[in-house]
């Protein structure tokens, strides 16, 4: 038996499912959604291929040329086409820095989102399915945290990290800590959404049937309930991805996020900010534009999915 034989029809079935998919058909309806999807694809490709595409490796100090520092973008009087978006104070190519920065921002946003869903989804499932005392305790905790805006929670956790860890440990752990701070700041929203959907599913006949034939509780949660509440979770995750990216950028902009050795878009904007008043605007503007277009594209796409699936925000 060869693999291709069994694979053929299955792939076709996948294709037809994809063609009938509600999510995909929503692209055709809205040009804004198509544009956003194209932008996001561009950012994803950049995230994968940036090291092969950049004109200059911004972390490689040997490639920097101090005589080329503070060049404006190429179309301006002093600009050179070697540095299409200009250079920073050390002669670093802004385009390359933005490409690497976008990659870092997207990566950290995704990591924080993954942590938030790893915490929030199981908690929501368990709370919604078991109910009772455990449910009220978990939801009380979530509600208490929800009284605070997530970005404040992330800032607070960040500050606690600084107080608890020794200086050298803190510096090496900082990127991980940023993921932790943002991930933890977002879990209650996930838990609330998942719990609400689980409560609806719990009473349905197929769950009852599964319980009757003796399917274990964890199996019911993972294989029966979770797939059936998948689409609102996905849309919700998309909205929160843009939040996570902005949160990381905000922390980095405030100087408590990623270190300058691992610059995200937020870090780039912060360093560029010092030059803003002396007229070197390109250092903070271009990373800012990249950040804004990424976040807008994600929001816009999530919006159109939401309209399509008729989900009200959690």
């Amino acid at each position, binding site marked *: 038996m060869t693999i291709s034989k069994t694979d053929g029809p299955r792939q076709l079935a996948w294709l037809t499912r994809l063609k009938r998919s509600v999510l995909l058909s929503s692209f055709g309806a809205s040009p804004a959604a198509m544009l956003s999807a194209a932008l996001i694809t561009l950012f994803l490709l950049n995230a994968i291929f940036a090291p092969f595409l950049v004109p200059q490796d911004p972390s490689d100090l040997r490639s920097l040329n101090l005589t080329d520092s503070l060049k404006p973008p190429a179309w301006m009087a002093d600009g050179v086409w070697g540095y299409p978006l200009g250079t920073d104070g050390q002669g670093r190519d802004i385009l390359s820095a933005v490409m690497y920065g976008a990659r870092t921002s997207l990566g950290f946003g995704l990591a924080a989102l993954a942590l938030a869903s790893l915490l929030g989804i199981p908690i929501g499932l368990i709370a919604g399915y078991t109910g009772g005392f455990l449910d009220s305790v978990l939801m009380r905790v979530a509600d208490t945290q929800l009284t605070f*805006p997530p970005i*404040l929670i992330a800032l607070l956790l960040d500050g606690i990290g*600084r*107080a608890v860890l020794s200086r050298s440990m803190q510096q090496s752990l900082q990127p991980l800590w940023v993921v932790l701070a943002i991930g933890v700041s977002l879990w209650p929203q996930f838990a609330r959404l998942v719990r609400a959907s689980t409560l609806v599913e719990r009473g349905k006949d197929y769950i009852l049937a599964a319980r009757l034939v003796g399917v274990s509780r964890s199996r019911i949660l993972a294989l029966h309930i979770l797939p059936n509440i998948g689409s609102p979770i996905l849309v919700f995750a998309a909205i929160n991805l843009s939040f996570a990216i902005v949160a990381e*950028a905000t922390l980095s902009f*405030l100087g408590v996020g990623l270190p300058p050795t691992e610059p995200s878009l937020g870090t780039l*904007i912060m360093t560029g900010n010092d030059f803003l*008043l002396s007229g070197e605007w390109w250092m903070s503007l271009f990373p800012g534009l990249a950040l*804004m277009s990424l976040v807008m594209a994600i*929001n816009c796409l999530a919006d159109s999915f939401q309209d399509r699936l008729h989900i009200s925000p959690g």
Partner: protein
Amino acid sequence: MLAFAFSRALQAIPVVLVVGLIAFALFAYVGDPVLIMLGQEHTEAQRKLLVEQLGLDQPFYVQYVRYIWAVLHGQLGISYSFGRPVAQLIAGRLPATLELASVAAVFAVIPAIPLGLFSAIRPRNLLSRGILLVSLLGVSAPTFMIGLLLILGFSVALGWFPSFGRGQVVQVGRWWTTGLLTGSGLRAIVLPALTLGSVQMSFIVRLMRAEIIRALQADYIRFARARGLPERSLYCVHVCRNALLPVVTAAGLQLGNVLAFSVVTETVFQWPGLGLLFISAVRGADIPVMSAYLMLAGLGFVAINLSVDLAYHAIDPRLRIPHLGASSES
């Protein structure tokens, strides 16, 4: 009504106590306060004395109760980095933040309501599409980017407004300093308030639009149309009154976010308020300031939620009938 207010206030107490517990745990267990207060060189006797003075040898719950008691009396500890009482620091910074937040709220609410109304009534109008796009930008764009763009446009390029600071301030009474009475103070508040207000404004515009579109589909509007009411009174009297309810609630709940965004705005504009104090505490791991901020913010948020709840209850008569209230809340 009174019973409702009472039960809601009771529900808020555990939240405050839990926040207090976390603030206390931060205060007491993160970092070693004795080491920080005495420095590296001290004798065992000095250490013992301080531990006794601070009550650190007492059991956990005694310390917690003492902490809450002290907080209730306005004693929030001493800042590690400034060496001054936290309460004093906060009191000095509070006027700047409150002024910024109030001016921002004015900037946000006054244009947002007519813009939202217009974009809902004329959805195909080019201006409405523009409003919608700008509000999407306002919701999505990070606060600090809006601030930077404003600085770039109005400070660097045009030179109309200063890019940092609070301008000249005047002492009013014993506790309050205001920048709203001097020319430079008024000029200084424009850009930060616009930045802080932009998020609120976009949010209110989008919500207002959604609510009005929903209200326009209601039966009573169709009936009002059938009665031949003029469009103007239809929108102003019937639609707006019903659509504004959820807007008021949501905008009120957004006040908590204003505090969070003020941290960012104050950093961008070096505005000497609470947010700047908080971010310097985060940078310098100044735990007493952080825990006091947490406590204060927690109290503030609980108070906001509570008053929004009560206001909603007071405005919407449907909520006062138990069985109706349950259905209209969902």
